[in-house]
C-alpha cells in the first residue's frame, strides 16, 4: 500500500480529525488534508487527486452521506475509496451507506486496530479488483 497516498479526513470535530490524522500518521500515512464538513471537502476533492477519503456522517453544511453520493456521482473522482467513521450505529444508516457505495464503515468509538483493519481491507479489495 502506498504510504504517500493523498488522504482527505472530513469531520466537523477538530479533535476527531486530529485523532484520525494521528492514527493514520502512526500507520505511516502522512500526506493528509483535513476538511470540516462535506461542503468544504467538496471543492478540495475536486481540485486535488485524492487517493482515499475518511469521512464522518453527521456534519453541518453537507453530511458525509451526501459527500459520498456526490463523489460517486462525479465521474472524475467516482472511484475514490471512502471510509465512513461515524457515531451513527443504526442498521438503516449502515445499509444506506452501503447502498451509496461506501467502502468501509467504522462505528465510533473505535480503536487503532479497527482503523488499520478497515484500511487494509479496502486497499486489498481494490488490489484484487485491479
Amino acid at each position, binding site marked *: 500500500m502506498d504510504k504517500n497516498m493523498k488522504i482527505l479526513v472530513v*469531520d466537523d*470535530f*477538530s*479533535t*476527531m480529525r*486530529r*485523532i484520525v490524522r*494521528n*492514527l493514520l500518521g*502512526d500507520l505511516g500515512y502522512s500526506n493528509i488534508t483535513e476538511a470540516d464538513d462535506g461542503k468544504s471537502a467538496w471543492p478540495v476533492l475536486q481540485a486535488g487527486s485524492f487517493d482515499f477519503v475518511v469521512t464522518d*456522517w*453527521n456534519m*453541518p*453544511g453537507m*453530511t458525509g452521506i451526501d459527500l459520498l453520493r456526490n463523489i460517486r456521482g462525479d465521474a472524475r473522482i467516482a472511484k475514490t475509496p471512502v471510509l465512513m467513521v461515524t*457515531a*451513527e*450505529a*443504526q*442498521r438503516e*444508516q*449502515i*445499509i444506506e451507506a*452501503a*447502498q451509496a457505495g*461506501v*467502502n*468501509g*464503515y*467504522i*462505528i*465510533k*468509538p*473505535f*480503536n*487503532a486496530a*479497527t482503523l488499520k483493519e478497515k484500511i487494509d481491507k479496502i486497499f486489498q479489495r481494490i488490489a484484487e479488483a485491479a
Partner: protein
Amino acid sequence: MSASTQDRGALIMALRSWIERLESGGSVDAPPALAELLQTQDHAFYRQVAELTRRLHSGVVSLRLDERLTRIAGDAMPDARHRLRHVVQMTEDAAHKTLDIVDQMRGVARQISRSAESFEASDLRRAALLRDAEILRERLNELAIAQEYQDLTGQIIKRIISLVEDVESALLELLGAHAAHLKTAAPLPIAEGQAVLAGPAVPGQITTSQQDADALLASLGV
C-alpha cells in the same frame, strides 16, 4: 352595565315624586321605592366592579406569565445554549491539550528508539529500550484515541442545544406579538437531515456493534 329603560323610568319617577314631596315640605328621607331602586343599582355597580377586578386580575396573571415566558425564551434559553457550547469548547480545548502532550511524548518515544539503536545488537539494554519505546507508542495511541469522547459527548450536547433552540423558537412563536420586543431574536431552525440521524449511542438504545456492522456490510457486499 347600564340600567334598563324600565329601571331608568322607575328611577326618574321615584326621583320626581321625591322632589315633589320635598317641595311640598314632606320627609327628607328617600321614599322606600327609591331606596330599593338605589340598592339594586348598587348591587349592579358592585357586580360590575367585581367583574372588572376579575378581568384585571386574570390580565395581570397572564401578563406575568408572558413576562416569565419572555424571560425564559429571551434570556434563560440563550444562556443555556451558551453554557452548553462552552462545555463543548472546554472539552475540545482539554482534548487538544492532551493530544499536544501525546505528540510531544511520541517524539520522546522515537528518541528512545533511536538511542536504543546506538547499543550493540547483543546488548540487552537495546532490546529492553526498544520494547519500552514500543509500549510507550502503543499507550500514546490509546491515549490519543480516548480523546474521541470529545466528539461523542460534543455531538450529544449539540443535539441538546438544537432541542433548546427548537423549544425556544416554539416559545417565541407562542408569545407572538411580544416576541418583537425580546432582546434576543429567534435562532435559525436547525438544518434538515440532522434530526433524523440517531447520533452517538446512549444507554438504553438499541445500536449496532462494529461486529454487527461488519456482518451487515459483508451481506451487502462491502
